[in-house]
């Protein structure tokens, strides 16, 4: 499903952070074009 798709990772400091999403999706063979981690106030 993710083949050939470009991934944008919007992580959450209190949930799943950006780098974690990145690592997981890299292992799925996906191309990550942007990753960040938000903190909700």
């Amino acid at each position, binding site marked *: 499903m*993710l083949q050939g798709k470009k991934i944008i990772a919007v992580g959450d400091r209190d949930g799943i952070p950006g780098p974690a999403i990145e690592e997981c999706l890299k292992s799925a063979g996906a191309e990550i074009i942007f990753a960040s981690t938000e903190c909700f106030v």
Partner: protein
Amino acid sequence: MDLEIQQRIKDLTEKHGAENIVVVIGGAEAESAGLSAETVCAGDPTFAGPLAGIALGLAVYHMVEPEIKDECDAAIYDEQCGMMEMVLDVDAIIEEVSKVRKEFSKF
């Protein structure tokens, strides 16, 4: 969703084409995850950011949803997300995000 991130997503969508993008979010709760999801499909529901009134219709999933989780290497997923997954209300998150996706995503 942070205004700068909204702008980046807007720019990247213009550059690569909405049909080629999948947004994966990591929101800690169903509500905040739902808002983020809605922002990238239907437009910023708080009307505060660059995506206010702009429905990109992007495909969006939460990291814990099977459609994403199952595509990843199990060991790496466990290492990166295993702990958090235990603390998050996974069912509520999946329910909220998939609801938003079904209603607003075009891809």
